[in-house]
């Protein structure tokens, strides 16, 4: 294997695959990235055995071949290379020489044959979606997924495809985010898949603002193919909770409010709230929302936002982080908040259609 590559291309590629590499493993080869040189490109491949990522970089290949090297070390080297272009040559099976200007490295690797193979992938169905659309939907929901490993299914994000509609849902049992879009799909498909949050977070980084992504499915895996990059992920098996059940059908009251001003008010009041156990109280009355955060040890913060409201007065207490999350993820100017009483879920809505259900904090 021998190739010449632009330094910036190499950095970009290694940066992308870096999050796939796990920090602690008993299988040292997983610290490595597999480099394969073919025709006029090289391919980087990394895996943690449940999520794998492959990305291609343009390169001038003199001799094809492949081997694997410590991904972090290679990344650190690439970032410090003194010139724009570097030559990479495999001396024997697992020793490479990197030459760049006056500097050169001899890098020990592990032979490509030892690298875990890409699991066989027999597509059962596949479809295309706009990258920008998928990215937007994922960004609006993924933060609500759980990182609690005891309820594995909630660590994933549900992608539900029905006819020409795609629905993405994430929940940690305390709040739930849902977004729905019409898409052009070749034929009537009805698929539910739960994708690990790690995969989604990678996907968000890789998805671009143009072009399409090809999603292919097998029994328990999904692959996301983009122009120079493919992510293959195991799916989380199990039954996703019935999300429709927890979305309140009808709430008593509704307030429309400017998203930025509500977010700003929450951000300012939450500063006062106890760091470990944050809470803000929303006092809703005629044409006004008052937001109060208090902390015995520090003091109190108070904000008033004028709104158009003529319903019943009531107070609700929330974890401010849970309330700010969707406001940060949305981009519309106005949002609506629907609610019934201080113990029932509140619903944040936006006309995407986007729904966010949040349970309040109960006092005493």
């Amino acid at each position, binding site marked *: 294997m021998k190739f010449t590559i632009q330094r910036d291309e190499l950095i970009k590629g290694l940066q992308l695959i870096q999050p796939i590499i796990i920090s602690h493993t008993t299988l040292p080869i997983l610290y490595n990235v597999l480099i394969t040189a073919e025709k006029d490109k090289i391919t980087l491949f990394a895996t943690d055995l449940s999520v794998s990522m492959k990305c291609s970089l343009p390169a001038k290949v003199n001799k094809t071949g492949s081997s694997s090297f410590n991904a972090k070390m290679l990344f650190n080297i690439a970032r410090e290379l003194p010139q724009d272009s570097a030559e990479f040559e495999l001396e024997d099976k697992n020793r490479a020489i990197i030459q760049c200007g006056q500097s050169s490295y001899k890098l020990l690797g592990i032979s490509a044959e030892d690298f875990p193979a890409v699991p066989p992938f027999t597509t059962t169905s596949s479809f295309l979606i706009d990258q920008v659309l998928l990215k937007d939907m994922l960004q609006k929901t993924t933060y609500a997924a759980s*990182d609690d490993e005891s309820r594995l299914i909630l660590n994933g994000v549900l992608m539900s495809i029905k006819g020409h509609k795609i629905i993405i849902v994430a929940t940690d049992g305390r709040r*739930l985010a849902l977004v729905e879009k019409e898409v052009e799909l070749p034929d009537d498909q009805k698929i539910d898949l739960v994708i690990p949050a790690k995969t989604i977070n990678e996907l968000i980084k890789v998805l671009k603002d143009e072009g399409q992504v090809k999603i292919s499915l097998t029994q328990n895996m999904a692959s996301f193919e983009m122009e120079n990059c493919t992510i293959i992920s195991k799916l989380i098996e199990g039954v996703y909770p019935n999300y429709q059940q927890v979305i309140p059908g009808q709430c008593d009251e509704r307030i429309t409010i400017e998203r930025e001003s509500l977010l700003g008010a929450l951000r300012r009041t939450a500063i006062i709230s106890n760091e470990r*156990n944050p809470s803000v109280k929303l006092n809703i009355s005629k044409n006004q929302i008052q937001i109060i955060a208090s902390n015995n040890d520090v003091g109190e913060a108070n904000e008033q936002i004028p709104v158009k409201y003529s319903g019943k007065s009531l107070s609700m207490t929330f974890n401010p982080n849970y309330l700010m999350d969707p406001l940060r993820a949305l981009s519309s100017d106005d949002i609506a908040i629907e609610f019934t009483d201080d113990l029932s879920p509140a619903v944040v809505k936006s006309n995407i259609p986007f729904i966010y259900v949040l349970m309040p904090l109960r006092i005493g």
Partner: protein
Amino acid sequence: MKNKIQILPEHLYNKIAAGEVVNRPGSVVKELIENSIDSGATRICLIVKEAGKALIQVNDNGSGMTEEDAAIAFRRHSTSKIKTYDDLENILTLGFRGEALASIAAIAHVELKTRISDDDIGTLVRIEGNDVKEITKISSDKGTSVAIKNLFYNTPGRRNFLKSNQTEFRHIYETFVKLAVSNPGTEFEFYNNDDLLFNLPKRSLQLRIQDLFGDDFGKTLLNVENGNQIINVKGFISRPGFTKKSKQDQFLFLNGRFFTNKSLNFAVYSAYDDLIEKGNYPSFFLFIHIDPKKVDVNVHPSKLEVKFEDEGAVFGFLRKSVRDTLRSSDLTFDIGFGDSISFENEPQNLEHRGSHGESTAGLIKSETSDRAGFTGGNTSFTHGDSGFTEGFRQDNGGSRIHSIFEASNPLNDINIDESVSPAEQNSQSAIFEHTKKDETEKFNIWQFRNKYVMCETETGLMIIDQHAAHERILYEKAVQLLNSHAAFSQQLLIPLNIKLTKIDFHLAESLKEELQNLGFNFILRTDSTLELTGIPSDIKPGDEHKIFQELLDQYKEYEVKLNLEKRDNLAKSFACRSAVKAGDRLLKQEMVSLVDNLFAAQMPYVCPHGRPTVIRITTEELDKRFSRT
């Protein structure tokens, strides 16, 4: 067909029963001394040879027995202590089952000499394996003397099970200590292989403990006294800082009888809360008196276990009594240069009394050097090394501290109705006077090696560990803060189903309100499934199930208030991280503020990990040191 079932002959069932009551020399000692005490003796002498394998003799000056009584005393279920079933309900004597002498007689050679005060001449009874070999008139002192020889001579199996002389002697020694502690009004002598180990005069309880464990140990104790119409407790507990790594020297007595009860031991530990480090245990000598109708002591032949009608109430009472004592005491560590006998003397004393070359002298030495652990050298608080002897003041102070404690910890005392005890109403003691702000300014205060704050007080010099003291202040703040937010419960969008055992399910049902106060909301479903609908908002997702189960287990084991230990640990680590460190330079105002805040704390004397925050040297001690007195 020939009948197969027969009534066992008496000598055989006595042998069988002996296994229950008498399983080692130590239990013979227990039975005999208890009989002496029940007979009203004021002097008891115990003589032991070869760890009781050769001889156990107990002489007393009690009421003695007539010839007729002496002759039947060794029959099973013969007892002078109860006559009717009603008596059994009201047992105040130590023995009552009428099994002891019969059981002992079945497995040893027994010689009984006894005389009642009305007679001029006494009786001698000699028994071997339940057969009366001799009854004669002899001249003897008033009282009873029982000598047990060749224990287990006719039950070789049992004899082979005996441990080494050292171990068996230790059991005798422990038995003796328990009985001597519980009867300070009785004189005791204890001879081992002709060496006088103890000669204990009639004493107060505290002095009896000092006689047994050493003067210095006696001075590390705090007096506990509390009671009402139904139950009362008296006795002594260790000061925090004089706790030990083992659970040794923990004595609970019920109506004068030693007993063991894990749950009540825990009641005492838990009263120390954060005053002791994890893994350390206090010593205690606590005498509980309770209406005999409320307990059943007849659970086990050796009467080591008792059954309470309402163990939860006893638990709460004991815990509160100990806690009140700790809160109302001045726990400052005084450094004294006192001339009290240092503890090293005790083993020497013992050796001195005994004859040389006997294994027991060494044995006693090891016994007592174990004890030295809590009286100086080996404690976590080691001033022994520097040649100082620690002395402690016993003044009752800190009512202000106490009232803060009561007020700010409403959550701590959900279960037990803890009314304010008289001890809490004591006036403020001298040590706290200086803590008023304007007064602190009057005293000199300076920093030593950027590590200790030295502060002049009215009575002497206070040395404060700046890190430990600050830690204590921050810890209390943090606990208060965390608990003030405790009421928030994050409601769940998707309820969590928890499958419980039947017992836990009912427990959860009965504790519903308390669990709700901690932030758990739930609905009880049928089939032992519980649906969590709300959880404390500060617990990590994924921990809910575990923490809920832990709370139930905690309650099952100890029946104590529910407490999120996690919050306490959080407060501790917060305090430790945020406190000023050794090496930080403090300005005068900072030092004054540290001292003020420390003595405004609920428990200023120890840091949250149980180490001392303050040491005091009184002016008198310094004067003494410089021979000014």
